[in-house]
């Protein structure tokens, strides 16, 4: 998934629907799918292998692992990418911007599974490896959106702020960053959805998460386990995308 593609979903078609419908549609759909999944699994006669994967303790543990991986990676991305993006947008660093854009576009071509496995050679299997891979993959869209977001602020507004006697720090905090919020949030949302997806691959490097259900089900030839893992991953991705959409609506500065 490239950043451009997902970012473009900001032009959400559902926006035309009434606010309540738009906000409630996704969670209701997810709930329906989860109930259907539960009902379907409870009609099956699970053998001992399936029971070992499909019980409450395992599902809860995998959910927590998956969310931990996603949230930790996103938090690191915020800490790394936003300051870097702001720094790259400063006039003194103008030369860096095209470099970042080029590296960013090329970096998208590196397959995430390849990146994860290469990280494993450097630091062994486990949670930290997955985290490094996830962060490396998700930093670029946020970095790029932050940079572009800050750069595209109308120079006249900055000039006006300077005329009002603001210092450079004040201009950055109270004008440029505020106006860049929509672009930064869009990048973050993209990164979150990317991370949820790539976190399924974390299971390949023994970092847990829903990917483990998918992989185990496939290896042991127990399709129900794989299907539960797949559906849960998809549901969590939709849910996080929905949360990101809400955050975009709520955090957008008033007047924009």
């Amino acid at each position, binding site marked *: *998934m*490239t950043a*451009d*593609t*997902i970012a*473009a*979903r900001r*032009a*959400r*078609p*559902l926006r*035309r629907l009434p606010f309540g419908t738009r906000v409630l549609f996704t969670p209701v759909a997810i709930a329906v799918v989860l109930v259907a999944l539960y009902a379907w699994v409870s009609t099956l006669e699970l053998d001992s292998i399936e029971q070992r994967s499909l019980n409450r303790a395992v599902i809860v543990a995998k959910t927590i692992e998956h969310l931990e991986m996603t949230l930790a990676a996103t938090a690191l991305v915020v800490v790394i990418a936003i300051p870097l993006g702001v720094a790259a947008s400063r006039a003194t660093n103008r030369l860096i911007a095209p470099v970042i854009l080029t590296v960013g576009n*090329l970096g*998208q*071509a*590196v*397959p*995430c*599974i*390849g*990146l994860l*496995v*290469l990280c*494993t*050679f450097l630091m062994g*299997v486990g949670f930290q490896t997955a985290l490094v891979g996830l962060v490396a993959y998700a930093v670029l869209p946020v970095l790029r959106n932050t940079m572009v977001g800050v750069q595209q602020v109308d120079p006249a507004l900055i000039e006006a702020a300077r005329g009002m006697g603001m210092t450079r720090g004040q201009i950055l905090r109270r004008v440029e960053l505020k106006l860049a919020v929509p672009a930064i949030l869009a990048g973050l949302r993209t990164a979150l*959805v990317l991370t*949820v*997806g*790539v976190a*399924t*691959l974390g299971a*390949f*490097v023994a970092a847990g998460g*829903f*990917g483990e259900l*998918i*992989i185990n*089900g*496939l290896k042991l030839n127990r*399709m129900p386990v*794989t*299907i539960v*893992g*797949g*559906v849960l*991953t*998809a549901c969590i*991705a*939709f849910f996080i*995308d929905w949360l990101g959409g809400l955050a975009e609506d709520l955090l957008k500065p008033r007047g924009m």
Partner: protein
Amino acid sequence: MSFSEYVISRWDTLSLAAAEHAMVVAVAIAIATVIGVGVGVLTHGVPRAREASIAVSAAILTIPSLALLTLLIPLTGLGWGSTLLGLTAYAFLPIIRNTVTGLRGLDAATVEAGRGMGLSRPRLLLRVQLPLAWPLILTGIRISTQMLIGIAAIAAFVDGPGLGNQIFEGLSRLGSVNSLNATLAGTLGIVIIAILFDVFFYVVRHLTTPRGLRVRP
């Protein structure tokens, strides 16, 4: 064995895997282009249909690729079938969106002029609207292609073709001889394929853009 020795000694396997990788992406893109441009052409004038088609293709893209590919196994089995179907589904959003944007962004006066010259609707579409929207449509196809090249690596897990197999081979023999070489070969090979496809699209774009559109700021 050094990396270069590995690549030379496994050249047959690697080049076949690379060819299959490019092949499966190309086929998926071809199918997605035909369907996506078709959907875009049919729905760009109808707000509801247009929004629905973009919403559905955006929803597909939200599904993590490992999940989608494995969920297809009960339907299309392991191997080429699931790979092709999954990849095609992922390719829709950029193509449909750019087709719709391209067709809607046309200068109304130009389309009106075409109509005034007595072109029928199909001819208007083929000779005026699509050629003018083509650069944007092609960009959509290019974005989809870049995306699919990466996703196709994961398809190796559902027994799909391509260089992803090298990566998974490296993973499964972690620490043994050549495991790093296999992973590197798979990853770098995919990056090279992505660059080659990009060059291809650059050339196609240059050759197929209507002359009047080429000189643009």
